[in-house]
């Protein structure tokens, strides 16, 4: 670990520090792009990043899993459609639905994989303007009680990077009504709807709050000098949230 990759929060250099033992898996498919950034975000919040290969079926006792962004299988067929049937995804789906409720975060292509897996409802289609879009995007935290959002304030506005082509969230009206009524919209777009997503939805959670998916990229906004406006660290809360959740669960 180089000096620039020391944890940004707290000091976990002392052995037996509680968070030191947290193991966060980051899965890699053919065509995944952001696994390294996601793993780096995990390390910078003081946890251990564990690389998971799509074709393996051993979850290696991880405490949580991140499904990162990219273009798994080149987005062939539908974004996330082929990755969803990888052996490692079977394990993740079972663990997310089990009593242990493994925390799972899907970012961008990871969100698409979670909807294809039916861990989250709805689906993503091409942006309504048909263009690939990359911008700093303002989001509102609509639910701060999930495993991945508990370190944000309810209603807090954060700015992180949005970059995708198939980012338009769609679901039938009944599903959208249920998501809103049950507080399962985790993030909404603020100021401008960048892709035509129904009800300005940027991210959602499952009923239990352990599975969260969103299109924008918190792992690119964890460190000053990079990310939105070269100052933004608004994405850090995702990674501190899951550690807080895991520590709470061990009490």
């Amino acid at each position, binding site marked *: 670990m180089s000096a620039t990759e020391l944890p940004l929060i707290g000091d976990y250099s002392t052995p037996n520090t509680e968070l030191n033992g947290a193991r966060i898996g980051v899965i890699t498919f053919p065509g995944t792009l952001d696994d390294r950034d996601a793993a780096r975000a995990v390390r910078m919040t003081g946890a251990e990043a564990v690389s998971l290969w799509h074709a393996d079926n051993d979850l290696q006792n991880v405490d949580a899993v991140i499904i990162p962004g990219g273009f798994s299988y080149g987005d062939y*067929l*539908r974004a996330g*459609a*082929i990755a969803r*049937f990888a052996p490692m995804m079977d394990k993740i789906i079972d663990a997310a639905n089990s009593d242990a409720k493994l925390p799972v975060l899907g970012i961008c292509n990871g969100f698409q994989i979670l*909807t*294809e897996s039916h861990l989250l*409802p*709805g*689906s993503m*289609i*091409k*942006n*309504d*303007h*048909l263009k690939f879009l990359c911008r700093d995007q303002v989001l509102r935290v609509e639910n701060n009680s999930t495993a991945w959002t508990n370190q944000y304030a309810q209603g807090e506005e954060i700015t992180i990077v949005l970059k995708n082509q198939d980012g*338009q969230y*769609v*679901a*039938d009206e009944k599903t959208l009504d249920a998501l809103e009524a049950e507080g399962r919209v985790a993030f909404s777009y603020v100021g401008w709807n960048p892709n*035509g997503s129904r009800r300005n939805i940027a991210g959602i959670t499952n009923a239990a709050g352990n599975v969260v998916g969103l299109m924008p990229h918190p792992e690119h906004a964890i460190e000053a000098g990079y990310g939105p406006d070269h100052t933004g660290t608004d994405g850090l809360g995702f990674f501190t949230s899951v550690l807080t959740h895991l520590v709470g669960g061990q009490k």
Partner: protein
Amino acid sequence: MPRIVVDVMPKPEILDPQGKAIVGALPRLGFTAFSQVRQGKRFELTVDGEVTEEILAQARTAAETLLSNPVIEDVVNVEVVAD
């Protein structure tokens, strides 16, 4: 060898951005008779040997699970085409 053709279309209530772009381009080429375009997908599954009822049933299941996403798409046709 016989093939099983599977046609998948976006659900009617789902906006089809690609179809919308195509319908915008048609008049530029002088094709003014078309008011709407929806773009779907056609899959051709080649079978080595005879297409039995069981193989056809497999194709239907594959169409519903992998080839289409029931949230946004409908399987509109599954048929056997002999060469």
